[in-house]
Each structure stands twice: as C-alpha cells, then as structure tokens.
C-alpha cells in the first residue's frame, strides 16, 4: 500500500508503451513479439511450478488446449471473439488440470516431469488422429473480434498486438500478486520442507494441485494468443519439444520475477529468427551453441545479468526502493 509495487508499475507502463509503439514496428517484429508473449505465459506457468521445485514437461498440453479453445469456438460455434476464446480455453484447462492434478500432485522430481510429458504426449497422439482437431494439419483461426468490435483489416494486427500485450499484463500482474501472496510463499516452502507445511495445517498435495491449475490457465492463455497470432492451431503445440522450450525459457531468464519469462521468450524468438536468417542450414547448431553457452556461463540465467547489474548499482542508491519480495 505504501509504495506502488515496481513490478506492477513496469508491467503497466511497458504495456502502454508497447501499445503506442506498435504502429512504428515492422510487421514481422510485431508477430515475433506476439509469439514471444504467447510462449512466455506457459513458461510463467513452468516458473510457478518450479517455485515448488516441480519441473513440468507437459505445459504444452495447456498451450494446446488454449489454442484449440480459440480454434474450436470458431469452428463449432462460429464465434471468433478473442475474450470468449481465451475463456473457453481457460475453462477447459481448469477442467483438464483439475483432473490431471489428482494424478500428478503426489509426484516429485523427474517423475513429475515424466508423467506430465507422458500425459501431454497421449493428448498429442490422440489429436493427430481426430478430425475434431484437424489431425496433424491443424485448424485455421480467423481474424478475431473483441467483444463485438471487429477491427478493419488494416487495424487487425494492431488490435491483436494490443490485446496480446494487455492479456499478458493482466496475467502477469495476477501472477505477480499470486506469487507475493502467502500462498505464493507456501509454494516456495513446499520445495524447502513438505513435512513442515503439512504440520502447519496445509495440504501439500492440494497446494500443488491448485498451482497446477493456475499454471494450466497461464498455459492456455498463452495458447490462445499463439493461435490468434499464427491464426492456426495444430497438435504440435502439445509435443514434448514445445513443452521443453517453455522450461528452457525459464532457464534462460531465471525465476526472479514474472517479467523474467517474457525476457527469456523474446530472447529465444529473436535468437531463433536471426539464427535461421544468417544460417539457414545450420540454425539449429547456432541455437544449440548459444543455449549451451548460456547454461555454461550464466547458469542462473540471463536474469542473473540484471541481478548482477542491480547489485553493482545498489550501493550508490542509499535509500533503495522497497525490497523485491521475490527472491532469486
């Protein structure tokens, strides 16, 4: 109450700045940012699961659900509303994660990773078979409308970009509040000592279950944005490499703050696009080499660079801003 939370301030100002900057950005950059924003949400889901020490290799499942939320609401109800699409995906992912959570909430470590991977691969295996999901060819997504407002073709990209940015802002701020709440601290405490958490009157399993659902909703929101941006949804969204990418985004950027996955995601998309442009035959090699370099030389992620820079600046600012509640 005393101070405005710096993270919230940065998110709101950043979203506003990006919204106004959009008309001055080339289309391919806009698309790249949209895809990065979309991918950062399931990565944020990975991050909040990692707060409890849980590594999910199945966030792609919710990316898939979110994307198909938009695609199927259009294909079967004829509605192309962005908000409704997001809500449909979120509702479906709450349902799925609610069920899946009963199975996975008792798993830890590599077994949590394996089971989430297996479940999402089962869904992938089904989706490539089912006409409902367009099989491996996927489904196309139309230009979206926003609560009855249908932007003209010239404004479609701007509208979608602004929508993506502010959806991220809402989910980013919500997640920030979630993580700085007592429940957020409880999640961190689970990795530290499950026994003590249980003796403090809270069920670790329920907490993990709830957190799984929250992460699922984040994943599905990202999926909806990805489908709206690419105007396409296909089963590869649930493939294990997609899920792996989300974890990697968190590794790149660290877990200090909800903004970290966004930076990680933008970095990864930029890296991929330049690697593909400069080395059409060897872009995977370049991508792999940079990944490896980050892991070897910045094991705490690129976010650690910010932390190091911040530490270097701190002595000069005697009256520092309120302490960040999220610890690295």
């Amino acid at each position, binding site marked *: 109450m005393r101070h405005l939370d710096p993270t919230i301030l940065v998110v709101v100002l950043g979203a506003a700045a990006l919204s106004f900057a959009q008309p001055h950005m080339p289309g391919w950059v806009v698309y790249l940012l949209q895809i990065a924003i979309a991918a950062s949400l399931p990565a944020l889901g990975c991050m909040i699961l990692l707060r409890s020490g849980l590594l999910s290799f199945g966030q792609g499942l919710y990316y898939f659900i979110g994307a198909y939320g938009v695609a199927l609401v259009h294909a079967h109800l004829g509605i192309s509303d962005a908000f409704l699409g997001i809500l449909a995906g979120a509702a479906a992912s709450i349902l799925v994660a609610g069920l899946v959570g009963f199975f996975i909430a008792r798993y830890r470590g590599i077994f949590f990773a*394996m*089971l989430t991977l297996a479940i999402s691969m089962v869904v992938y295996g089904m989706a490539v*078979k089912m006409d409902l999901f367009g099989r491996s060819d996927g489904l196309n997504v139309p230009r979206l409308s926003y609560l009855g407002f249908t932007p003209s073709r010239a404004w479609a990209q701007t509208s979608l970009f602004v929508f993506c940015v502010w959806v991220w802002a809402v989910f980013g701020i919500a997640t920030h509040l979630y993580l700085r709440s007592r429940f957020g601290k409880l999640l961190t405490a689970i990795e530290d000592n499950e026994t003590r958490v249980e003796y403090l009157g809270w069920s670790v399993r329920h907490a993990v279950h709830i957190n799984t659902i929250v992460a699922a909703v984040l994943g599905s929101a990202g999926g909806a944005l990805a489908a709206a941006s690419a105007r396409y949804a296909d089963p590869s969204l649930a493939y*294990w490499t997609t899920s792996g990418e989300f*974890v990697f985004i968190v590794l790149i950027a660290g877990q200090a703050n909800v903004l970290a996955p966004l930076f990680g995601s933008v970095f990864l998309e930029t890296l991929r696009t330049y690697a593909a442009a400069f080395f059409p035959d*060897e872009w*995977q090699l370049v991508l*792999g080499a940079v990944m*490896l370099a980050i892991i070897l030389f910045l094991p705490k992620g690129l976010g650690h660079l910010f932390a190091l820079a911040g530490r270097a600046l701190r002595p000069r600012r005697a009256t520092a801003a309120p302490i960040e509640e999220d610890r690295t």
Partner: protein
Amino acid sequence: MNLALIILVDGISYAGWLFLVGIGLTLVFGVLRLVNIAHGGFYAIGAYVAAYAIGAAASYGLGAGPQLLLAFAGAVVVGGLIGFLVERTVLVRLYDHPEVLVLFATYALFLILEDVTKLVWGGASLYAFQPRNAFGTVAIGSLSYPVYDVATVVIAVLVALGTWFVLNRTRTGRCVTAVVHDREMSAAMGVNVSAIMTGTFVVGSMLGALAGAVTAPKIAVSPGIGVEVIVLAFAVVVIGGLGSIGGAVVGALVVGLARAFATHLFPDLAVFAVYAVMAVVLAIRPYGLFARPVARKI
C-alpha cells in the same frame, strides 16, 4: 501360424532394438542422474559412421561380416570419443548445478550434433543395406525374418548380459554400483567418482552409437533419425524404471509387445500405444516397473 506367436516374435524383435536404443540412456541416468537427450544424437552419429564404414569397406572388397564389424567398431569408437569430449568439456562443469540445466545442456548438444552430422554427411540419405541382405532369412513359423534381425536380438541379449556382468561381477562394476547408491559415500571410500562418471557417459555414448550402427543397415540413414529415437528410448527406460538395467529389458519388452499388439489388432492406435502405456505405468507405479522409490525424508 497363429497371431499370438507372430505378435510375440515381432514384439521381441522390436524389443531387442528398443533395448539397444534405451540401455545407454538408462545407464547414464543411473550413474549420472542425468536424462541425456543427446543420446539421440549419438544414435544418429553411430548410424552415419556405420553407413560410411560399410560403404568404405565394401569399396575395398571386404565381405559382409568384416563390413559390419568395421561399422560397429567405428561407430563405438567415434561415439565414445565424442562422448568423452562432451563429458569432459561440458557436463563436468555442470554437475553442481540443478539437474534440469544438465538436461538442457544435453538438448543443446543434441541440436548441435544433428547439424554437425548434416554438415559432415549432407542432407541426402546414406544406404548400407548390403550386409543385412547378405545374411539371408530364417523361417519362424510361416513367416521369414532376416537373420540380421535375429542377430540384433542376440546382440541385445549379449549387451544386457555384458552390462549385468560388468556391474555385478567386476570391481569396476561394484564401484559403479556404489556411486549409483551414494555418490558422497563412495567418494569418501576412495572410489574415483569423477572417473566413474566420465567412464559411464563414454560407455553410454558408445551404446547409443552402437544402437545406431546396428540400425543403419535396416534404414535409410538420413537427417532427423535421432529425434524419434529419443522419445522411444525415453518411454522404454521410464516404463522400466530410470537407471535400472532389468527395467530397460522389461520396458523394451512392454513397449515392443504393445506396439506389435496394436499393429496387428488396432493399427489405428499404434502411435498412441507407446505413450498410453507410459502414462498408465507411471500413474500406477511412479518410479517405473523396476526402480526402487527413493525414501522420503522426514
């Protein structure tokens, strides 16, 4: 020939291959606690080296047997060398870090190895099928199977027995088992943990390359062959229990039989079968069929 027998034979034949593909992965996990995604890269390198060696040997007029020996030896040597380099230059710096970092390091290595094989051998397919065809076929029931495929199962059994023998009947093997059990304690007891870890990774890489070499004569060796293998190998060792040799045998049999069963009776579900079995096994036995659960501390 009745269907059950056909499914059994197909399942076992496929299981032999799956075991060869999975054994290196499970060995490395057991000792290094590391899910090695680069395993698929070693598989591909093994296949390429073998295809190249078979071509080279054939051009010198060597027969099918020497061609294969040269191919397997070449793949194992190259795989081992690259494994050694990778462990010494990359992995060794990461053992203090969280497991997931090492996992992604191996993923990065996989991407690099993929493109390196493409740079060395180009995008077009290589072929090395002559030695497989040279051995002819054998009839099992009413169907004929290549002798080479039967031999693959034999190689898988030999590798399984060999691994078992080394781990259980030799001094080195006992050191490895000790490291698996408790790394710190083994170090305290004078086991050279670092050497054991390097050695295991090298052996794991060799086994991955060997699996590729054994497969090379059955396929068109082309880009991307390592990707599918990762997921399959993964499923096999997870079902059996990560780090358990016996588990890899059982996992290979379960997946092999499931696939053969699905192909013959529910061909639409063949792809899906592997992941479904994996999910069901994990949901019932989180640690896989064979690995012991780690005791939870209080």
